């Protein structure tokens, strides 16, 4: 069999295409009650009192819950599983997101109360009848202002909005390099706040069995085991074996469905209180004020160059919004991902970086596809191209002078991260060829002469994926593992079920994971099925995040499959009365080398399950399966480069992305169809950040202005530019397939590449920078000097 590398159509598609998917909201249990949440309409207010008497008396209302009930029950809060201390060792100023706001609300959408009723309409009607007496307080919602003197403070006990301060690199060395530089480029850059907006809104259905004390939760989660652990350990204080978490079909996650959401523990608790199923399905407008949001950095940075354009050093000063509370992976994004990737694919010898996390009266910030790399790449690549233009060096040529040569890998950066593998110079030359860069420049010159505003921009960058091993993750603050689990179980007829601790919510595990298993087992793909997303059947897994599915979860399957074949070989040798090393195995057939004597995998599986015709002795056990917990020895480093051509309408200042080119290196590709799909999808999100998406809050009141898809612009089919993509392959050295993460690069490059192209188009008009999203208004402001 040779499935790895083939662009196989996905096996999971048929159920989705025919309307037979099974999403959480599709799961129906008899006698289900509905829960609805009352949310703060204010960014910052004191709660003087809550009167729920009228609501509690409405027909069909079963229960009204508030912070007082929560406190009386002695329950906990959400958790932060990746705290980042100050670089001098002090713990961060941590405030966890509360399940119910007690005396103060700190963002629009903070949960104040919940109603459980016989049906959804009844619950929603009752919410309207709850009277909350708010004393509205001044709010701060703008990240750049969070540490200004006199701004409202989110959590008074810290006397400021500072959460933590992460310092990386060597200030003295960077200062010295700047002092000796031939040229210094400086910029102030903001990375716009985003909403992940998976198309399926979050949903939870919890059941409780009074006879057994067992709870079951169907959840839109990317990581069912971690969700179970968080609920049990930090919030509801219950044993993990009393909660089963099932993540059925999940309609997109992008990181956001990995977070510990504010409503989920309450749904589980409510089911327990009532002894019946309780369901909650989020609406989009609720989601916009409750799902963790992303990005939102404010950065001043500078880059020092030699006379010939080599980067000598970089200095970065960033304010990173945390929102109103520490969300569970939140601190790691500006604290780890951002500094580790900010020098990108360049030889930058010195860096000094300071990131200060800040609270604002906004929805908490957490991981969303790209997580820290889009913010880092925007800073690095905007500085790079402004520096090139100021020095009169072509933007491709300056990159040739700065890219890390292939032979320097593994490469240690000034923050200490070791990049495992890449070939940036090859990638650049392939991108130049793919885009026909010289022709693009000629065409640009011709169109400029004709009065058009046309620009070309690039972005070169590092992704990072497969976060691990667990011990290394722990040194960076992680309170969760970096490993993944798998069981490969042969049944008595020789068919196989793979159980994975990873979870697919669009990534195509049922196809790609089974391609790996089929190749390792030497069996047809159709003989293999996948089970995922159920804590009662799958061993403890860390789930899907950080582009880790294939390079960690896939390798766990690879190793478990190999162990199954190793054991099968021992049984086959017994059956054939030969020594195991004398056996050859291919395509489901064990053969004694040099003979035509053999047994099939199916016969071995039959014998293994009968248990009779098997080796004897204390070391042998019947059955044919293997469980693997694979902790990767290292992370892996995908890389990519983007190039784009834009034109700008000089009347409306609308930016048209005319062409987009991508080059990716994600190591070995198991399924090209799926990987290209990941590039496309990432790109739509990256172009969304570049061109239109922004969560906006009123600067004074902190009121959320982008509360629905009416106000929060999402990329649609006609927004996507013509695209040409290609790949190079440098194998990841840390895993036997050489695979790397292949799903996030599309989100990383576009804000930088398109921003660079816009500045290229408008340089002669004096424009040096535009912050994303590059709306007509933003471009016009930059041109008009507003």
């Amino acid at each position, binding site marked *: 069999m040779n499935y790895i590398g083939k662009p196989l159509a996905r096996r999971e598609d048929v159920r989705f*295409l025919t309307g037979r998917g099974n999403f959480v*909201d599709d799961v129906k249990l008899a006698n289900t009650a509905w829960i609805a949440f009352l949310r703060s309409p204010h960014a910052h207010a004191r709660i003087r009192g809550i009167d729920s008497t009228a609501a509690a008396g*409405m027909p069909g209302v079963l229960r009204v819950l508030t912070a007082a009930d929560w406190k009386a029950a002695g329950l906990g809060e959400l958790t932060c599983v990746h705290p980042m201390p100050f670089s001098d060792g002090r713990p961060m100023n941590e405030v966890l997101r509360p399940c119910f706001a007690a005396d103060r609300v700190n963002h629009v959408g903070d949960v104040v109360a919940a109603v459980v009723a016989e049906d959804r309409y009844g619950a929603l009607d009752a919410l309207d009848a709850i009277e909350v007496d708010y004393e509205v307080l001044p709010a701060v919602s703008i990240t750049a202002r969070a540490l200004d003197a006199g701004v409202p403070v989110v959590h008074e006990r810290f006397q400021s909005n500072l959460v933590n301060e992460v310092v990386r690199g060597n200030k003295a060395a960077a200062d010295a390099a700047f002092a000796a530089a031939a040229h210094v480029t400086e910029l102030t850059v903001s990375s716009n706040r985003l909403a992940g907006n998976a198309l399926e*809104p979050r949903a939870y259905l919890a059941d409780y069995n009074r006879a057994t004390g067992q709870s079951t939760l169907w959840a839109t989660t990317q990581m069912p085991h971690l969700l179970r652990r968080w609920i049990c350990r930090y919030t509801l204080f219950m044993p993990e074996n009393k909660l089963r978490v099932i993540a059925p079909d999940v309609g997109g996650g992008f990181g956001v469905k990995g977070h510990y959401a504010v409503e989920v523990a309450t749904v589980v608790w409510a089911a327990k209180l009532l002894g019946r199923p309780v369901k909650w399905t989020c*609406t989009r407008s609720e989601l916009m004020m409750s799902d963790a949001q992303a990005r939102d950095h404010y950065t001043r940075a500078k880059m020092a160059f030699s006379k010939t354009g080599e980067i000598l050093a970089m200095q970065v000063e960033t304010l990173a919004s945390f929102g109103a509370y520490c969300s569970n992976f939140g601190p790691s994004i500006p604290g780890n991902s951002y500094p580790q990737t900010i020098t990108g694919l360049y030889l930058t010898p010195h860096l000094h970086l300071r990131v200060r996390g800040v609270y604002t009266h906004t929805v908490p910030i957490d991981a969303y596809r790209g997580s820290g790399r889009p913010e880092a790449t925007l800073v690095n690549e905007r500085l790079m191209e402004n520096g090139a233009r100021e020095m009169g060096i072509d933007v491709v040529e300056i990159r040739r002078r700065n890219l890390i040569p292939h032979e320097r890998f593994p490469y240690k950066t000034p923050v200490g991260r070791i990049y495992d593998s890449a070939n940036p110079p090859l990638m650049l030359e392939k991108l130049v060829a793919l885009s026909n860069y010289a022709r693009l420049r000629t065409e640009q010159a011709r169109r400029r002469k004709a009065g058009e505003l046309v620009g070309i921009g690039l972005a070169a960058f590092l992704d990072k994926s497969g976060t691990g091993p667990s011990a290394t993750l722990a040194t960076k603050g992680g309170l969760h593992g970096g490993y993944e689990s798998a069981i490969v179980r042969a049944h008595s007829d020789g068919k196989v079920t793979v159980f994975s601790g990873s979870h697919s919510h669009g990534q195509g595990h049922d196809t790609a994971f089974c391609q790996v298993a089929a190749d390792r087992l030497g069996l047809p793909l159709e003989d293999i099925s996948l089970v995922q997303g159920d804590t009662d059947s799958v061993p403890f897994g860390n789930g899907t995040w950080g582009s880790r599915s294939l390079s960690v979860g896939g390798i766990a399957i690879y190793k478990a499959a190999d162990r199954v074949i190793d054991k099968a070989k021992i049984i086959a040798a017994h059956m054939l009365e030969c020594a195991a090393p004398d056996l050859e195995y291919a395509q489901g057939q064990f053969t004694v080398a040099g003979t035509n004597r053999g047994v099939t995998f199916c016969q071995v599986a039959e014998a293994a399950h009968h248990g009779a015709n098997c080796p004897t002795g204390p070391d042998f056990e019947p059955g044919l399966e293997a469980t693997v917990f694979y902790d990767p020895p290292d992370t892996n480093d995908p890389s990519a480069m983007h190039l784009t051509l834009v034109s700008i309408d000089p009347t409306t200042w609308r930016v048209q992305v005319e062409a987009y080119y991508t080059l990716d290196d994600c190591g070995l590709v198991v399924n090209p169809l799926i990987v290209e799909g990941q590039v496309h999808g990432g790109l739509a999100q990256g172009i969304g950040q570049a061109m239109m998406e922004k969560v906006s809050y009123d600067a004074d009141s902190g009121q959320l202005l982008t509360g*629905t898809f009416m106000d929060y612009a999402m*990329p649609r089919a006609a927004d996507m530019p013509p695209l040409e993509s290609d790949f190079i392959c440098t194998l990841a050295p840390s895993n036997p397939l050489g695979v790397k993460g292949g799903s996030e690069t599309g989100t990383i490059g576009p804000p930088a590449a398109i921003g660079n192209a816009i500045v290229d188009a408008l340089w002669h008009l004096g424009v040096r920078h535009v912050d994303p999203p590059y709306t007509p208004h933003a471009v016009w402001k930059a041109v008009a000097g507003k």
Partner: protein
Amino acid sequence: MSARVLHPVEMTVNGVTIRAQVETRQALAEFLRANAGLTGTHIGCDTSQCGACTVHVDGVGLKSCTLFAVQANGAAVTTIEGVAPQGAMHPMQQAFQEHHALQCGFCTPGMIMSALDLVRRNPEPTDDEIRQALEGNICRCTGYYNIVKAIAAGARAMRAPAGK
């Protein structure tokens, strides 16, 4: 708080007559999911922007979250479950699989229903016409490239003579 009033509705969904008592505020999408038990029609937003709920009402593509169930009283509705016989796939569904035009699959039913509505109006759409026709459907996973390819291929397959 006035008492909740129920109205009788009856409609034909995928050829089957469904009768129910519904509240005025119940959207057709909710009726299809809750009363008809057809959960292939999805609700992705509450402002008629995303198109995950697209169905055909009396043969015309409509967002079923914009229509109250009472407004669809007497109508013939086709949902994703009804575009091909059970166990089979419509050429448009096949094209979506072949061209990897779905990832998480949540927007997919609405995309297919919009695609079929487009082909009904325009049997030979250009790529540009497909992109314009999808203005009411949001996909967060695919970047639309493969969806456009699939709809063009699906339309071609639908034009092909039977038996091919």
